[in-house]
């Protein structure tokens, strides 16, 4: 359930970005290192690639399709996004990234970034907790399965 919620959030982020690709391309240009001099076409392709990965990973998490690798990819994405946010935090006048579109209106840019970082940490924690829970769930069930196998043998 928790994994599906993160998946829904990723899908939501992808869909909102899909509506405003030029704006998202501008955010990439302004925030991602080395993207400042990229051509408009490159930035748009990059923005669409991020949207594709987000919707792919998000819908996979919702449908429990290759859950474990998708959780790893999602955590990787959140870590990368957080890295970019942290770099923005160091700027005196950071631009508003509008990440995930779920930061409350009227926040200052720095407050918005801190909110984004906390949100990403929370999402990473959810995915980590799901992984740990599943691992423990399987490891607890494994001896039972083995014993059943021994008994049946």
């Amino acid at each position, binding site marked *: 359930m928790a994994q599906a919620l993160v998946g829904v959030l990723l899908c939501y982020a992808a869909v909102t970005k899909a509506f405003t690709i030029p704006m998202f391309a501008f955010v990439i240009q302004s925030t991602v290192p080395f993207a400042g001099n990229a051509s408009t076409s490159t930035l748009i392709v990059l923005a669409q690639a991020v949207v594709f990965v987000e919707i*792919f990973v998000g819908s996979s998490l919702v449908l429990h*399709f290759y859950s474990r690798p998708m959780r790893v990819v999602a955590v990787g994405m959140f870590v990368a996004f957080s890295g970019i946010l942290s770099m923005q935090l160091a700027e005196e006048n950071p631009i508003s990234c509008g990440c995930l579109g779920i930061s409350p209106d009227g926040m200052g840019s720095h407050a918005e970034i801190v909110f984004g970082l906390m949100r990403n940490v929370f999402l990473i924690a959810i995915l980590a907790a799901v992984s740990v829970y599943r691992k423990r769930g399987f490891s607890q069930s494994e001896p039972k399965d083995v014993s059943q196998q021994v008994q049946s043998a």
Partner: protein
Amino acid sequence: MKKLNTLSWVKLVLVLGVSILVLGYSVWITSSARSGSRERKSERLNATEDSMEWAQGFEMVSFQAVKSAHEGDLGDDQAIDSIESVLERAKVYNQAGLDDSAIESIVRVASEFIYYRFVLDDPERYIRWRLQRDDQFRGMEALYVKAQVALDYEEFFGESLTDQTPLSQSFTRLYEHQRSLWASRYTPIGYAVDPESVLVVSATHNPIVGEQDIDLGDPQLNRLWLETLVGGHRSWFRGKTDHDQLKANLEKYQVATVGIVIEYENMERRTLYLGILRSGTGGDWSVEALSATDTAFTGGLIEF
């Protein structure tokens, strides 16, 4: 490699289907917007060239002539009166159904703006005029971050703006620096004084329904005034009527556009538009927007 079972195949098809659908939509909406924008830009470029050619037919008065004709203690008011006498001869497209006194106050505000911003071209006098009108500098967050003043400041002067820098100081510094970037094709030297060279339009905007379309009743006039390539300039002040607040409260408001023809140092003539607004229930007019016809947008901004 592990073989996929039927359920996994179904999930793969669903995941890929949704992903391709969203990606396809984003590619389609972006490319259609870009190609539509290219077509519109080409049409607007043609209209801009026609508008510039049309503007060559008007009689011009230089800002320097207005300034030197009215030097002295009463100079400001006399100079503003002389600009007002030009603007008030314009045909008014009164779509908002304003009364005569409202139209007069629109013309007065526009005349004062032209005088303090273009004729005097002195940032300190301009600030003083805005503050005398009870206008205020917009907030630091709105100016420095949203209007990208801080980014420009750092790029131009290699220094960071801090919260301690007075807004009047950063305004003056950017005002003067932008002027140094103008070059001849962006340096305004005068304005046209024929009645046909001035446009006064009023409209009512409703944040729920949207903006009221402007129609001058003549396709050619619409093309020359309203379909040119136009770039906006940076507003530093907020009037007594706060546009953002009106929109946030979903209140109707009245918008007046005053258009004039400006001559630049390279003798090109292009239209310039002043956006003035007030609440739908009346009150004082606030200078909210300034935009100018242009084909290249390579000059500095007009900070106002």
